[in-house]
């Protein structure tokens, strides 16, 4: 079975209650839609307090490249355009909507029948994806239309579809692959047409045999789409690791996957692309896993963007008594939330409720020079060395040892027997080095 070869760890996959059907979350309270929900230049709101909005109406506009927009998830009145806390408790611009009635934009089609014919041209597809606010749903939220516009120095050969879901606990991509396989495959064909490539490979880890079998069977009718089972290993869902696992090519340091002829999209994004292109639906809804060792019935929910996180936790039987930490995302790369009055955003793949005894860090001890972090690093870095360099403010050394290649997967910290905060320092050093490089490239005088 294929996999990437350098580094990686094997955390227990903990896919709790993975076969539970997805549930549609009904919520009627006020929605809070963050204005910028993508990676790139911030957006600007184009609605005002008191405006009536229809479902699917765009609420923001781009200010610069690369940008993406958000749409109203429900019809109703704009209560306020103000600030709301994000996952770090920093105030960011947000739009509050009080739902009323059920009006929708005329172009949206709610017809559930599968539409296989792709009528749009590649340029129209990219334009549609941009207008419908599609971003990468794997977690990074990078605008999809930017990824589909191949730069001049690259040529797309392969479309790689990420159904790996290597993070423990997460089951939303799995559920989507079982529930919407036909839509995903049409989505893949749309993306293939937009990129004008004739080969697509879907990578799925071996702990999801049902999804592999189902997609293989369905993909047999589609030309150029193959489904590849991958050996379980974290972080296989990271772009560069997936390129290595599926095509055997290595992305050079400082380059993007497109420079090896690969474009990677998540299965969630493929589904959103299908909805946008075939049904003209903007991205206002996504599948979110609510899980945790103490959660009564872990499962997936179809949630409208802007629903408060607390409504999700309520729907899953409420917050267990001994909850010590609520994480947005998986346990390896997710971010702990300061409170539950936060809205669901496009990038929220899961809510993980950890009990008190699993929620805390252990005291850091001295480095014992065991080299486990070096073995675990999938990018071939030396985390122990970079950790020391960052602490001693040796940013030149960090740059020379390619700290900017760090993908922040957390393998080093996970594997460290002394519980040292390796990921923390590497992130800090990476941001500082990136800043130094930016300053160097933009002379002030």
């Amino acid at each position, binding site marked *: 079975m294929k996999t990437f070869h350098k580094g990686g760890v094997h955390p227990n996959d903990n896919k709790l209650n993975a076969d539970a059907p997805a549930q549609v979350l009904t919520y009627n309270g006020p929605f809070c839609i963050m204005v910028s929900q993508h990676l790139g230049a911030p957006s600007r709101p184009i609605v005002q307090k008191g405006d009536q909005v229809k479902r699917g109406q765009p609420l923001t506009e781009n200010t610069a490249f690369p940008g993406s927009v958000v749409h109203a998830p429900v019809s109703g009145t704009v209560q306020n355009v103000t600030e709301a806390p994000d996952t770090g*408790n*920093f105030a960011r611009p947000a739009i509050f909507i009080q739902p009323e009635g059920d009006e929708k934009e005329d172009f949206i089609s709610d017809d559930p029948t599968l539409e296989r014919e792709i009528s749009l041209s590649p340029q129209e597809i990219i334009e549609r994806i941009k207008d419908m606010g599609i971003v990468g749903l794997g977690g990074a939220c990078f605008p999809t239309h930017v990824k589909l516009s191949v730069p001049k120095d690259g040529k797309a050969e392969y479309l790689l579809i990420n159904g790996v879901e290597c993070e423990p606990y997460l089951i939303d991509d799995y559920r989507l692959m079982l529930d919407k396989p036909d839509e995903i495959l049409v989505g893949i064909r749309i993306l293939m047409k937009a990129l004008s490539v004739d080969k697509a490979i879907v990578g799925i880890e071996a702990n999801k045999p049902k999804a592999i079998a189902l997609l293989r069977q369905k993909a047999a009718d589609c030309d150029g789409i193959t489904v590849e089972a991958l050996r379980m290993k974290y972080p296989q869902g990271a772009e560069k690791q997936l390129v290595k696992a599926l095509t055997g090519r290595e992305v050079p340091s400082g380059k993007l996957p497109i420079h090896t002829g690969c474009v990677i999209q998540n299965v969630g994004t493929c589904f959103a692309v299908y909805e946008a292109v075939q049904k003209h639906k903007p991205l206002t809804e996504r599948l979110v896993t609510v899980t945790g060792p103490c959660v009564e019935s872990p499962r997936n929910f179809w949630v409208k963007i802007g629903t408060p996180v607390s409504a999700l936790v309520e729907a899953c039987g409420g917050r267990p008594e001994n909850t010590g930490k609520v994480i947005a995302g998986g346990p390896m790369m997710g971010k702990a939330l300061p409170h539950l009055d936060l809205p669901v955003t496009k990038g929220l793949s899961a809510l993980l409720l950890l009990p008190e005894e699993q929620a805390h860090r252990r005291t850091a001890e001295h480095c014992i020079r065991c080299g486990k972090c070096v073995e675990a690093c999938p990018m071939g870095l030396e985390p122990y060395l970079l950790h020391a360099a960052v602490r001693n403010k040796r940013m030149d050394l960090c740059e020379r040892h390619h700290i900017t290649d760090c993908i922040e997967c957390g393998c080093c910290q996970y594997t460290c027997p002394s519980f040292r905060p390796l990921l923390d*320092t590497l992130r800090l050093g990476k941001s*500082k080095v990136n800043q130094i490089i930016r300053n160097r490239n933009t002379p002030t005088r």
Partner: protein
Amino acid sequence: MTTLLYAVLLLAGTGLIAAVVLYAIATKFKVEEDPRIDLVAERLPGANCGACGKAGCRDLAKALVEGGDLVCPVCSNEEWAAVAEMLGLHADTCEIKIPVVRCQGGRLNSIRQTTYEGFESCAYAHSLHAGENGCRYGCLGLGDCTRACSFNCLSMNPETGLPEVNEAVCTACGACAQACPRGIIELRYKHAHEGRIYVGCHTEDKGALAMKHCLSACIGCGKCAKVCPVGAIKVENNLAYIDFTRCTHCRTCVDVCPKHAIVSTRPSDPEPAN
């Protein structure tokens, strides 16, 4: 005789060639330097103690000539006035400064809503979250400033969770102010005899939100600006700021502040003249 003549001529010839080569090289690779640097360096104590935060007196002289706002803490006032005159500066812009911490949140005045367990670094914590009390402008209490100080002048008070400045050893080098990711630390005139008066808060949040985070937050009510007899206080972005170059230490603002956000340091005992 000829042997002697040859020896003398050979030596003189070698010397001449070497001199020409050396002269040519010296002219070609000559380093242009501001002549004022040497003049200023002569006036400085020359002890190279590093108290100013620079590598030595000549380094300080260079920084001063280039327009750096630095002070030699060792110079007497007269010596310093002479240096200032040489550079065409007013002697008062060279008054000794000291850092002040413009946050009183910490453990006593604000309520902790979340717990941070990550790497002990303010710069890192700032990239992750607003702070344990939810204030995105306040002190994170992880001590980047204390680690930046080369003179062990700043220390974290375990009771308040805020940094404290030891006036006696501070050299006003400004490393702490640069290390703070939120710009809470500011260098102000030391005023050893009158003490310092400053707004001990850095929040630009609106009053209602600021009060949720902290008991002693500046709410931008503007009372202090109204009572200030010299107009040294201005309120911008919901935050009052006292201009230390104009403050006359009348302490009227300290008494009217409803949130007790204005800090007035006790005048330290005058040091014995040496």
